[in-house]
């Protein structure tokens, strides 16, 4: 495995040489390459170590359930502090100022809700995937099929966003061709997940979270140092040099009407509670107590990180947009707005720190796509294969084999989609993933935990309604219908469909459940009481496996 990887790396660097003639501006950054190789080397050692400890399905999906609350908090924060967040939100702040903060706050406030409503119940009821919880007392096949489609759709959209970010970043840093960069990320992530499972994925995520938080802290510190540690001076200077002037200090175009505002808020809040790769992390800790602690630490790290990106975005306005070294002939940033944070790292710390931040950003992409791929593969192997196709009568070895094949297939599909979506704004792509998570995954999960009258029929039809509505409205909306398909006018006027699709899902689930008079519906309602006691006490739930 290691030999294969080093071959891949060497060949990609040779390729970088070949491209050097075309992309003269992107001279090879030796410190970036050294730090990148160190990171990849370290993560491969971890993968090797994890592979030896990953023998059962429980190890593969949940790292044996032995991750601590603090570690899991860091890993969750790591999943959330994606390249799309780091580069996308600092780009949003760079381009629009205050609007970037609105976006971050939306991403953050989902976390308290997850803690108060979902986290411990999820831990007490589930085993490997959130579909375990959704289908706890309902009919396995239809619910698993629907939940896994919701999971795969969410994961795929999120993956595209990460891939686009990675392609652009590596293109800028190494002068590599976009397609080659995407391919490199895809192959590395397949290696981590197939060999190291959740244990490798978690530790890669933890290391990256620590590196990213340290790097971003240093950037924000240097920005403030430059401004004499005065926010007044930072904002005053930003207003002076930004083309939008004072407008960057106030809400602007991101949210232009109340429907979009509420729709975005719902997508971000409930979407977070429906992200399969995040929900999966609650099964890696040993009990509800650790699950709660995870959210507390995660919220702290994520909130701190968003404050840093806000300072970083403003720092880039002041220190990057005024320096012709980082600008194209016009006024645009070299590599686009998503590179604001990367250029800032060079402006404050030279080639060495640029190398560090680039390597960290790359590490971020690798870590996040690995977590996503693992969640997608689990939906295929644990939900679809083990509980639908062979419905429980499977052997574990085969299930793990299926999950590895699923990882590889998902990796290849992601590479192709990453190439197809090159020109889209990556922060908005994540928004779309959230809409689907909020409209399909969250309503089923939430009602299965809290509503005794939920039936299989209600969950299946209502959930499908939410899923389809979200997908169709996204396709008919401005982002796909106009920007990608090139039509003049969107058939659905809003960028964020969540307000409509989430409401439809809840109404649909309610109506199809209360009108369900089948004997099965009665059994499902009767089964709620024991499920409820388990969700409240954790009695009967999965413990950590002792190694």
């Amino acid at each position, binding site marked *: 495995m290691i030999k294969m990887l080093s071959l891949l790396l060497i060949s990609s660097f040779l390729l970088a040489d070949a491209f050097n003639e075309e992309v003269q501006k992107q001279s090879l950054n030796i410190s970036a390459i050294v730090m990148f190789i160190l990171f990849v080397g370290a993560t491969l050692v971890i993968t090797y170590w994890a592979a030896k400890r990953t023998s059962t399905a429980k190890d593969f999906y949940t790292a044996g359930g032995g991750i601590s609350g603090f570690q899991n908090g860091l890993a969750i924060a790591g999943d959330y502090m994606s390249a799309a967040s780091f580069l996308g939100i600092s780009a949003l702040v760079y381009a629009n100022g*205050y609007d970037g*903060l*609105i976006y*971050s*706050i*939306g991403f*953050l*406030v989902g*976390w*308290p*809700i997850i*803690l*108060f*409503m979902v986290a*411990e119940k999820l831990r007490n009821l589930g085993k490997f995937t959130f579909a375990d919880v959704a289908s706890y007392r309902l009919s396995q096949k239809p619910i698993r099929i629907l939940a896994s489609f919701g999971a795969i759709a969410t994961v795929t959209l999120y993956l595209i966003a990460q891939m686009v970010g990675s392609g652009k970043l590596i293109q800028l840093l190494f002068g590599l061709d976009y397609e080659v960069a995407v391919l490199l990320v895809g192959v590395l992530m397949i290696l981590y997940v197939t060999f190291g499972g959740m244990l490798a994925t978690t530790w890669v995520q933890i290391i990256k979270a620590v590196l990213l938080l340290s790097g971003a802290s240093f950037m924000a510190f240097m920005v403030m140092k430059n401004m004499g540690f005065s*926010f*007044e001076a930072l*904002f*005053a200077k930003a*207003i002076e040099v930004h083309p939008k002037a*004072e407008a960057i*200090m*106030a*809400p*602007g175009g991101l*949210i232009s*009407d*109340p429907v*979009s*505002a*509420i729709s*975005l*808020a719902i997508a971000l*809040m409930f979407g977070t509670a429906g992200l399969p790769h995040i929900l999966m992390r609650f099964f890696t800790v*040993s*009990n509800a*107590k650790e699950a*709660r*602690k995870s*959210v*507390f630490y995660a*919220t*702290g790290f994520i*909130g701190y990180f*968003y*404050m840093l990106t806000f300072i970083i975005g403003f720092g880039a306005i002041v220190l990057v947009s005024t320096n012709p070294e980082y600008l194209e002939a016009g006024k645009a940033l070299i590599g686009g707005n998503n590179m604001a944070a990367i250029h800032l790292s060079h402006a404050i710390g030279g080639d060495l720190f640029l190398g560090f931040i680039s390597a960290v950003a790359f590490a971020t992409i690798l870590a996040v796509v690995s977590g996503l791929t693992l969640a997608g593969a689990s939906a295929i192997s644990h939900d679809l294969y083990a509980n639908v196709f062979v419905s429980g009568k499977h052997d574990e070895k085969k299930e793990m084999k299926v999950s590895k094949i699923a990882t590889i297939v998902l990796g290849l599909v992601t590479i192709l989609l990453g190439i197809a979506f090159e020109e889209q704004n990556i922060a908005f792509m994540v928004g779309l993933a959230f809409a689907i998570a909020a409209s399909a995954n969250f309503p089923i999960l939430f009602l299965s935990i809290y509503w005794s009258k939920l039936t299989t029929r209600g969950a299946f039809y209502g959930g499908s309604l939410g899923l389809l509505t979200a997908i169709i409205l996204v396709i008919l909306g401005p982002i796909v219908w106009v920007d990608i398909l090139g039509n003049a006018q969107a058939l659905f006027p809003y960028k964020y469909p969540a307000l409509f699709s989430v409401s439809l899902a809840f109404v649909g689930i309610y109506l199809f459940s209360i009108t369900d008079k089948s004997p099965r519906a009665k059994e499902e309602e009767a089964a709620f*009481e*024991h499920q409820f*006691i*388990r969700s*409240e*006490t954790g*009695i*009967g739930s999965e413990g950590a496996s002792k190694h």
Partner: protein
Amino acid sequence: MYADIYDKIKADSEFQTLVKERRAFSLKLSFIILALYFSFILTIAYAPSIFATPIFEGSVISLGIPVGIGLILIAFILTGVYVKRANHDFDATLNRLKEDVGVQHD
């Protein structure tokens, strides 16, 4: 195999009280964060100029910035408040209940 234990726990009045208290507590905290966040987002939608006003005469810092940062801090503090009470008070009661019905606890 846990059916008997579930029924035993359910009959315990202390369990009923625990569930009620915990639910009331998490609903209260959820309401606080939802109310704050939706006020924030609706202010942006309907009256964005409020957030554009300077925090004091002559400052370039707009009101929206401390409000936004404050919201991030409140979200974090609320998770701390919940975890503290749940991991100490609620879990202590729960562990006592588990002992009563003969279930191992952590």
